[in-house]
């Protein structure tokens, strides 16, 4: 059928938009903002694909999805085959279809990008994954003959999950250790429900369990057991514990009651479901006026969560200008639609409060842009005497994360760089200790879901190579 529409005609057609909840409605709920493609939308969008002989899009996908093939199946209305095609290499399709920055990945490479209308690959992926879930289509669970080798994966974020899934498919016995009471990493504790519903994460994690991955929650590696303990029991180890430590501004007043790290704020709301308090027991305090410091995706998530939890005003405070905002354009757009107020070129210098620890305001200073710094962006410089007080009663620090040292401390021979991230061999993802591999945010610093998924896949292959050569941590 795809062949029936001439290429010229396909190139002329516009991208099919995705429907969304209207801003005034959605700020009063935690339901997903984009509503997804209908069957007709998906087929129409898929029909635009040129089915390139030498598909560039695939070079932009660390999950190694055969993109043209799954799109072809959509055109043929064979959604089941489309799903199985994606699932072959990507164990988290409904997740990546939602949270990947496709504009920086596959869609950036799409040949139609030059026309300004790349194929909406992410939306199609999401449609297929959602369709399969609703129609109870599952991947194969009868994996190849079981091998007598055991791999431990530490951390159940996207890096750990993808590595575990690939290894299980190859027939290894995989045990996934997770510190929290629920698997998923940032997918469950960081990214809000309105961008990634938790039932979907749970579903895809369960599908991974079905292919044989054993998930052990409540197990803090470095506390409950050490990496040295794991070495005695497992033939290889993959460390994917995420970055996992909050960064603070280190300004006066920052330990006051109503100052949260984005990690705490989002974990309370997402993992612990404080937005359903008191049905769920974990509380969260929301001020009338919330200031979120930072302008990355995490900051957008925090500012938008604050609105949904009842803040009347939600500010973003960013020391550079709009041009330098690191968040995805789509997230900034959504935040602005919902009424988040952006204060650019503004640096907090002090949190103000009363004796009881209640925040009453935040002193800030205005900035101007100077010469470019080492990151290539123009360096923000404070304008002397421009201090002013922003009237807020809660502050969320969303200025990034650092490496949590808990695992590194318990692992002998696994070296870290000066920021505490694991040193790895770029090609194999092996750490400085043979048999121990690492990937995701604990190697890259805060990065993306898809780069974590990619790391997990590369590591899984390297682990298989390591084990097939007859080596094992237990033999060392």
């Amino acid at each position, binding site marked *: 059928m795809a062949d029936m529409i001439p290429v010229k005609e396909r190139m002329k057609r516009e991208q099919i938009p995705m429907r969304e909840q209207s801003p005034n409605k959605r700020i009063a709920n935690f339901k997903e903002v984009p509503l997804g493609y209908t069957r007709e939308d998906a087929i129409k969008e898929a029909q635009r694909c040129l089915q390139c002989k030498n598909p560039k899009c695939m070079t932009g996908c660390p999950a190694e999805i055969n993109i043209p093939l799954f799109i072809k199946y959509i055109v043929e209305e064979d959604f089941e085959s489309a799903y199985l095609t994606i699932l072959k290499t990507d164990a988290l399709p409904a997740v990546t279809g939602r949270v990947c920055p496709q504009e920086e990945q596959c869609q950036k490479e799409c040949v139609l990008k030059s026309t300004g209308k790349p194929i909406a690959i992410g939306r199609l992926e999401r449609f297929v994954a959602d369709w399969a879930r609703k129609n109870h289509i599952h991947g194969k669970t009868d994996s190849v003959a079981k091998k007598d080798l055991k791999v431990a994966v530490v951390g159940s974020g996207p890096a750990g999950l993808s590595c575990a899934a690939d290894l299980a498919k190859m027939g290894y016995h995989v045990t996934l250790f997770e510190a929290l*009471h629920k698997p998923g990493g940032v997918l469950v504790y960081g990214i809000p429900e309105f961008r990634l519903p938790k039932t979907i994460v749970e579903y895809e994690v369960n599908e991974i369990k079905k292919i044989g991955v054993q998930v052990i929650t409540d*197990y803090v590696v470095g506390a409950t057991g050490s990496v040295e303990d794991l070495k005695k029991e497992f033939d290889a180890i993959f460390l994917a514990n995420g970055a996992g*430590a909050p960064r603070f501004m280190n300004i006066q007043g920052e330990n006051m009651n109503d100052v949260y790290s984005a990690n705490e704020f989002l*974990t309370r709301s997402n993992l612990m479901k404080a937005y359903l*308090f*008191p049905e769920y027991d*974990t509380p969260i*305090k929301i001020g009338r006026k919330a200031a979120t410091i930072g302008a990355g995706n995490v900051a957008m998530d925090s500012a938008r969560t604050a609105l949904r939890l009842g803040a009347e005003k939600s500010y973003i405070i960013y020391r550079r200008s709009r041009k330098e905002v690191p968040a995805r354009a789509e997230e900034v757009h959504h935040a602005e639609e919902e009424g988040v107020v952006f204060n650019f070129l503004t640096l907090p210098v002090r949190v103000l409060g009363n*004796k009881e620890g209640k925040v009453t305001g935040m002193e800030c200073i205005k900035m101007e842009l100077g010469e470019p710094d080492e990151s290539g962006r123009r360096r923000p410089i404070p304008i002397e005497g421009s201090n002013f007080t922003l009237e807020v009663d809660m502050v969320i620090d969303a200025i990034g994360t650092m490496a*949590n040292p808990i695992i590194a401390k318990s692992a002998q021979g696994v070296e870290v760089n000066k920021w505490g991230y694991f040193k790895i061999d770029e090609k194999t993802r092996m750490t400085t200790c043979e048999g121990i591999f690492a990937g995701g945010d604990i190697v890259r610093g805060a990065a993306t879901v898809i780069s974590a998924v990619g790391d997990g896949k590369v590591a899984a292959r390297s682990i298989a190579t390591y084990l097939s050569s007859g080596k094992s941590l237990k033999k060392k």
Partner: protein
Amino acid sequence: MYQIIKKETLYQDIYAMWIKAPEIARTVQPGQFIILMTREEGERIPLTVADYDREKGLIYIVFQIVGKTTDELSSFKEGDYLYSFIGPLGKKSEIDYFGTVVLVGGGTGIACIHPIARNLKKAGNKVITIIGARTKKLIIMEKELRQVSDELIITTDDGSYGRKGFVTDALKEKLDHDNNIKKVWTIGPPIMMKVTTSLTKAYSVDTIVSLNTIMVDGTGMCGSCRVSIGGETKFVCTDGPEFDGQLVDWDGFMNRIGRYKKEEKESWNHHKNQEEC
């Protein structure tokens, strides 16, 4: 899932439980804590490990009903399961030979000093233990503590048992008469720890406190537990829970542990209403 093997009522609203958690019991050390959840919808609360049995794989916790979660926990029976039980978290107590040490406990903190006292005794220290409560019936673990202490002093506010007065009165007397005291541990209600440290400061005796801040993950991920120690921000869950009491910003600490007072009340009321329905 983690089974409650044994449950004891120590007094009215103070309970103790032995929980089956072999992985934790294998490596836990005095001074460390666990985080538990009663149900999937529950909150994560930290409790100091009051004892452990490595062979049987058991962890001993002691708690007083102070809010919804502890109230609910108290309704669990032997054989029931907890949804989540994570640990051992935090740093262990610095057990060493110091000479003469004093352990001061109040409330459920009395239970927490027990494994510390036992290990300090094992390390050859002369252990003086001072425990206090409002009234006689609230004095818990007297027998156990007597076994591991060279001297046990009990105080009650109303004089119904032991000496009348506060633990700090007894401690002051000791400090006045014994200048061999090398180190003090104090675990209990924040105000007791604060007062104890300001007392020992006057005598220049090192004093360790165990802080019970509000936590979420307990692994250094969120910063909910942070507190200012000597002007520096520290995470109680990974840098503590034990700190040099003389460096603690007590006002900031007390503010932060009261962060959710209003919500805690609301949650408890909600819970009680549901029970009645």
